[in-house]
């Protein structure tokens, strides 16, 4: 398959234009000349045999520093990740950009979802996209100087000099906060009415975090909605470049802060791919079990808050009580709760504690009864249905166009679950179904998530009954930290232990990306290593970013109250959007 798309491109556009790069994750990676990228993408999306319909990710790499192989041949690399459902394959297109502040054609006319990705690349790297409808900063404040992911931009506060807020600067900052509809591409009035602009957020009980949505209202009807994100931006990608491969794990916990170890897994799968580590079976099963427990915990938070968004006050209390029961298990196993930081390069931090099976079994027996109760309380409630059925509808084509993944994609009727279709961490050994919806409305998205909790429960039960014996961490030299008992007998391991803990492990050159089915959709870490103790570039592709971008598209024409249903059903986490 990989060869075929390369040869298809060559036969279509000419032999010499492209060249293929070998990567660790074996994703076909094709260097494309800048001038040809737009027709190539157009071809891949619609004309190619088994087309690549989804723009999964778009990012850039600053190649000017370090021992990067491409240092000197180009200053920046643009990386397009496409996905083809027919082929079940990713495709990575790379474009070499020359110059300090390069510019390149925008592809927003091919994929609407490219809009925010291009804005992010502009914000982070200063790369301009010609023909972009509204190329403004997306994560950083408009007054920010510099582009954070460029290598010359400081990563530590101590590199930046003391912060001072002079009166002129304060005025400038205040001025920048003034709301000006034209800046956001909004009109103040139509032919027959003046619009009202309503800020939902940044502090609002219905947004589940610091998110601002500018609503252009005609009465209570939404004419347009413009999400303003970035309030939760903590520079997780930049931090990756100065943390060792090992010490970055806790940062991943905090990306989708409801997903816990699911984030660890997405990151570590890529690291382990780069390092060529195989995980012992017991560690894999432990990982799966914890991931599924966290999936239920995350879905429970969504379930309760969604019910609350449509005005139901009580379910959230019951669901948080159940989530607490999951956290009791997690606490017994990991010591942590929301941010367990528990997976390690090559396995997990510790073996399961004694009596873990009793805890898990109790939960597996207890939870189905509660799920049935919630079904009666929420899903079959007539008012709840009236608020969610037929609201925020998008079709399967629209979902793919906008890069919607996970339960939101499945609610449109496609049974695409990465755990089944591209299994990782041994998911192919488990029996579970992929729940799907039909109509792609808020209610179906809810149905899919509720069903997923049942399926997760099934997976947990299988983990419980078939937990293999054996080591919980690989004995690969790059497993960090190495298994303690070996360090007592073996000088090599002792040295590794010392170096990995003080400097961090050196992960071999290359790049890798493993896409996982996280709680909210596809999550992946596209890691580039230049053979150092820290990644050269960490790209965190999160599902919520793509989902949030859809909000304006699917909320036009609905009312303010519907917007809350739509937001609730999307199931996003602000840290997952802003990183």
């Amino acid at each position, binding site marked *: 398959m990989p060869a075929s798309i390369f040869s298809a491109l060559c036969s279509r556009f000419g032999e010499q234009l492209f060249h293929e790069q070998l990567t660790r994750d074996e994703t076909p990676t094709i260097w494309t000349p800048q001038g040809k990228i737009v027709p190539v993408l157009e071809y891949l999306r619609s004309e190619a045999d088994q087309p690549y319909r989804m723009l999964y990710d778009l990012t850039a790499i600053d190649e000017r520093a370090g021992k990067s192989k491409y240092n000197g041949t180009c200053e920046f690399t643009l990386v397009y990740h496409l996905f083809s459902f027919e082929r079940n394959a990713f495709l990575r297109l790379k474009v070499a950009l020359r110059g300090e502040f390069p510019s390149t054609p925008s592809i927003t006319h091919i994929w609407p979802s490219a809009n925010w990705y291009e804005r992010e690349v502009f914000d982070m790297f200063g790369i301009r996209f010609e023909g972009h409808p509204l190329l403004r900063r997306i994560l950083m404040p408009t007054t920010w100087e510099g582009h954070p992911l460029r290598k010359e931009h400081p990563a530590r506060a101590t590199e930046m000099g003391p912060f001072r807020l002079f009166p002129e600067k304060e005025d400038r900052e205040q001025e920048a906060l003034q709301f000006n509809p034209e800046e956001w591409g909004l009109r103040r009035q139509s032919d027959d009415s003046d619009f*009202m602009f*309503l800020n939902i957020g940044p502090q*609002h*009980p*219905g947004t589940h975090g610091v998110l601002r949505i500018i609503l252009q209202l005609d009465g*209570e009807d939404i004419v347009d909605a413009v999400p303003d994100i970035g309030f939760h931006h903590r520079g997780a990608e930049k931090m990756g470049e100065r943390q060792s491969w090992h010490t970055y794990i806790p940062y991943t916990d905090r990306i989708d802060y409801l997903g816990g170890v699911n984030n660890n897994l997405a990151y570590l799968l890529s690291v382990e791919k780069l390092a060529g580590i195989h995980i012992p079976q017991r560690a894999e099963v432990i990982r799966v079990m914890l991931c599924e427990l966290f999936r239920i915990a995350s879905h429970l938070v969504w379930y309760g808050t969604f*019910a*609350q*968004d*449509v*005005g*139901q*006050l*009580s379910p959230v*209390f*019951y669901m948080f*009580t159940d989530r607490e029961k999951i956290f009791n298990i997690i606490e017994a196993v990991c010591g942590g709760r929301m941010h367990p930081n528990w997976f390690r390069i090559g396995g997990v931090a510790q073996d399961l504690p004694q009596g873990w099976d009793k805890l898990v079994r109790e939960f597996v027996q207890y939870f189905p009864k509660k799920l049935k109760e919630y079904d009666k*309380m929420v899903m079959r*409630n007539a*008012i*709840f249905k*009236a*608020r969610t059925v037929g609201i925020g509808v998008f079709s399967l084509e629209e979902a793919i166009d906008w890069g919607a993944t996970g339960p939101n994609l499945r609610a449109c009727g496609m049974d695409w679950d990465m755990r089944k279709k591209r299994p990782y961490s041994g998911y192919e050994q488990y029996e579970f179904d992929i729940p799907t919806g039909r109509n792609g409305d808020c209610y179906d998205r809810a149905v899919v998530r509720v069903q997923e909790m049942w399926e997760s429960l099934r997976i947990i039960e299988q983990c419980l009954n078939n937990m293999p014996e054996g080591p919980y961490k690989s004995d690969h030299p790059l497993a960090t930290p190495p298994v303690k008992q070996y360090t007592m007998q073996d000088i090599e391991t002792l040295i590794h232990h010392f170096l990995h803990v003080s400097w961090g492990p050196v992960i071999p050159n290359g790049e890798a990306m493993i896409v996982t089915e996280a709680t909210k959709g596809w999550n992946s870490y596209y890691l580039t290593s230049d053979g150092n103790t820290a990644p050269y570039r960490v790209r965190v592709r999160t599902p919520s970013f793509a989902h949030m971008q859809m909000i304006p598209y699917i909320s036009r024409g609905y*009312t*303010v*109250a*519907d*917007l*809350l249903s739509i937001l609730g059903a999307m199931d996003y986490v602000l840290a997952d959007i802003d990183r």
Partner: protein
Amino acid sequence: MEAQYWWIIGGVLFVLLNTAAGLIWLERRMLALWQDRYGPNRAGPFGILIVLADTLKLFFKEDWIPPFADKVVFVFAPAVVVASVLMAFAVVPFGPGIVVADMNIGVLFFLAMSSLGVYSIVLGGWASNNKYALLGAMRGASQMISYEVFMGLALMGPVILSGTFNLSGIVEAQRGMWYIFPQLLGFVIFFIAGIAETHRLPFDIPEAESELVAGFHSEYSGMKFGMFFIGEYLGITLISSMIVTLYFGGWLGPAFLPGVIWFVLKTFVFIMVFILLRASMPRPRYDQLMEYGWKVLFPLSLLNLLGTAAVKLFIDK
């Protein structure tokens, strides 16, 4: 005679205001009970002094009027809700002879006063000069005015049956049979309209927390917010006591307890229903509420009125 009136007025005021304050505690405790948590349980026995603590806190808060608000109206609005609800209580017969003003147009007076309550929402929302408050006020105005209609029409059932607008008369007329039986439909309509009138969940659309932050009273704080708060609980008490008066025989009950006690007991049952509703129901959308009102409740209340009148005429013949 004169002194007796003052005793009744003073007693009613005292009991009502304390009930409203007590309801805040009661609701928080009951919600907590139904939601698997504790609720306020620290101040005083079972946390009942929380109300006192809250009131003190509200009194000591800065009496803040936003600079962009319309000051006079902003201050005036919260007073309207409390005043109008308290006025409406004037016609409620709490027991045989225990009524502030035994008017022969009691039912109409109640309707008039509860309609005035909408001014509080509209003026408060408008004077706040805040978009959330404005949206809340608009929703509140249309919701309350619409539901006023069905409420009035449903009320006509007991009036036709008893042949009087006097509330004490209506209670007396229920000696043979409570009006809940012949007027079941009317009761349901009145109850639903009553929830909308007090804008409580599921019809708390004017303040819809997850959408409009706090709706029409977003800008209010301190004791002015306290007035809206007390007004809401007084409203619940008022609607509950009206339900009891019109459909559940008012103070009537077996003789081993005095009439007032029966009245209070029955009223508390309905207050608890209000609280239970809040614990269990989601909130419909604003247009769904209006649609439900005009397309379902309105025809039903007309039907109820026609039916009741026809039956009454037939029996009287």
